[in-house]
C-alpha cells in the first residue's frame, strides 16, 4: 500500500506539474505563435534551444540550472537582488526547472497546430474587422483547441515523469522537493520493492491513461516524440 510519505510525494509531484503546465502554457503559447509565423533568422536558433531538453541528458540541464540558479550564478544573483533568495532545493526552483525541461512538449504541438491553421482564416477575420488579439481568441484558439489539449497533457505528463533534473535542482527534501520518481528511487535503494511497486504502478497507470486519451479521444497522431 501507499504510505503517507508516498501520498505526499504524489501530491507534490502533481502540484509541481500543475504549476509548471500553467507557466508553460502562458509562456509557450506566444513563443509557439511567434515560431509558427516568423521569418526571422533567429527562428532556427530558438527552435533548437526549445528542443534542446529533448536530446540533452536531464542531468546536464539540471547541472547548468543548479549552477546558474546558485548564489554565484546569473539567475541566482538576480533572485537574491529581488529578495527571493536562491532557487535550488526549493519548490519554485523545481517548477522553473520543470518548465525549461518540458517546454518542447508544449511548444511543439502548439507550433504545429498554429502552422496548420494557415493564413486564410486570419485574413478572413481581418476583413471582418477583427484585430490581431481578437482574431487570436475568436479564431486561432478554437481552431487550435486539440493542439492546446495535447500540449497541456503532454507538458503535465512529462513533468510528472521527470527525474534527473529534479534530482539535480530539487534534491531529495521530503514535502518540499521530493517527487514520485525520486521516492521510487529511494525505495529501491532501501530495497523496499513492494513500496516501489505501488508507486511505479501508479505512474505506469497514469502515463498509459494520458496517452490513451491523447490517441483515442483527441486522435493525436502517434509520434515517438514531438520533434517529428
Amino acid at each position, binding site marked *: 500500500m501507499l504510505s503517507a510519505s508516498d501520498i505526499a510525494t504524489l501530491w507534490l509531484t502533481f502540484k509541481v506539474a500543475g504549476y509548471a503546465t500553467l507557466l508553460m502554457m502562458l509562456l509557450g503559447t506566444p513563443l509557439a505563435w511567434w515560431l509558427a509565423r516568423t521569418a526571422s533568422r533567429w527562428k532556427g536558433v530558438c527552435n533548437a534551444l526549445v528542443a534542446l531538453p529533448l536530446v540533452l541528458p536531464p542531468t546536464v540541464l539540471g547541472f547548468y540550472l543548479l549552477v546558474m540558479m546558485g548564489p554565484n550564478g546569473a539567475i541566482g544573483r538576480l533572485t537574491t537582488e529581488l529578495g527571493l533568495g536562491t532557487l535550488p532545493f526549493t519548490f519554485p526552483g523545481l517548477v522553473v526547472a520543470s518548465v525549461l525541461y518540458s517546454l518542447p512538449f508544449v511548444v511543439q504541438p502548439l507550433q504545429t497546430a498554429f502552422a496548420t491553421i494557415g493564413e486564410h482564416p486570419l*485574413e478572413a477575420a481581418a*476583413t471582418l*474587422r*477583427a484585430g*490581431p488579439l481578437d482574431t487570436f481568441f475568436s479564431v486561432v484558439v478554437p481552431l487550435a483547441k486539440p493542439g492546446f489539449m495535447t500540449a497541456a497533457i503532454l507538458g503535465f505528463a512529462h513533468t510528472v515523469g521527470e527525474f534527473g533534473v529534479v534530482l539535480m535542482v530539487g534534491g531529495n527534501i521530503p514535502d518540499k522537493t521530493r517527487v514520485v520518481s525520486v521516492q521510487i528511487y529511494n525505495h529501491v535503494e532501501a530495497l523496499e520493492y513492494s513500496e516501489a511497486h505501488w508507486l511505479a504502478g501508479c505512474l505506469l497507470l497514469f502515463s498509459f491513461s494520458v496517452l490513451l486519451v491523447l490517441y483515442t479521444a483527441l486522435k493525436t497522431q502517434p509520434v515517438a516524440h514531438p520533434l517529428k
Partner: protein
Amino acid sequence: MTTILARFQLDYGDFKLDVDLTLPGTGITVLFGHSGSGKTTLLRCIAGLQRAPLGKLEINGHVWQDSERNLFLPTYKRPLGYVFQEANLFPHLTVRDNLHYGLKRIKQNSGTVKLEQAVELLGIGHLMERMPGHLSGGERQRVAIARALALNPEVLLMDEPLASLDFKRKQEILPFLSRLHQQLDIPVLYVTHSQQEVAQLADTLVILEDGRALASGPLPETQSRLDVPLAQDREAATVWQATVAEHEADYHLTRVAFAGGSLSLPAVDAEIGTPLRVQIYARDVSIALEAPTATSILNVLPATITGIADGRDGQTVVQMRIGNQALLAHITRKSALMLGLQIGMAVYVQIKGTSILN
C-alpha cells in the same frame, strides 16, 4: 461622385506591380487578366492584406494608404467586404455565427438590416444552423458573399469568387451577382480571368498584364480597344446596355433600345423598361458600304469606323461607333481591302446574332 484612387508599386523580383488607377465609385469594376497578371495582388493591396512599399489608396475621400506619409490602415480598420476565391468560412462556426462574426465587430446598427437583405438576396436562409463543412461549394460561396455584404462595406472586393466552382455552380451564383449588382449601390472590385464573367458583370473593365494596367474604362469602350489583345481574341465581343422597348409577339421578337438606336432580338420574357445586357460577338458583325435593301438580317445599323487593326489568321479588326456605343467587327483582310475601309468612313453594320446575358 465617389471614386477609388489606387496607385501601387511593388517589386518581388520575378513579379512587379505598377498601377495607377482611378475607378468609379459605383457598379462592378472587373480586374481582368491571366494568372500572374497581378490582379489578385492589386486586390490584396487594396484590402491591406499585402502592403505595397509605394502606394496611395483613397476610397470615397478616405485615405487608406499613403506611403509618403507612412500611413497604412490595417485591414481590420478598413470598411470593406472581401470575398476570397475559396469561401474561407470559419470551420468552427455555424453559418449564422459566420454571418454575425463581422457584424458583432462594427458599431453601426444598420448591419442587421443589411444582413437580412443579403441572406434574402443570396437565398441562404435555410442554411443558418449548418456547419460550413456540410455545405456545397456554391452554398459556401453564397454565405461568404452574404458575410461580406452584411457589414455594409464602402467597397466590396471579390477575388475570383467563382473560380473554384464547377460550371453548374457558377451558373447558380452568377444570377445572384447580377441581382446584387442591380439592388445594391456598393462599388464592387471583381477579379477574374473569365471573359464570360466580364461580359455578364462588368460596368468598368481594367485589363491587367504583367503587373500593369493595359486599359481601363467603361466596358464596351475597353473591350473594343484595338491596342489590347482582347479585341483580337476569337471570342472578342462588345456588351451593350439596353432596355426592353417593345414586344413583337407576332414575330416572336423583342425590340430593345440602346443609346443610339434599337435592336431586334428573339423574344425576351421581360417587362418593358427592363435593363438587359446584350453581347455582340465581333465575328457576328459584317460591314456594308451602302444600306442593304434586301437582306434577311434584321439588325442593320449605320456606324462610323473609328479604328482598324490587323487581326490574327488573315482577319481585320474594325472598331466602330453607333451612337454612343462602341462595336467591334472581325472581317477578312480581303473584304477590308475590297471595301477600302478607312477610319472616319460611314458604313452599315449587319449583326447576325446577339446573346442576352441576363
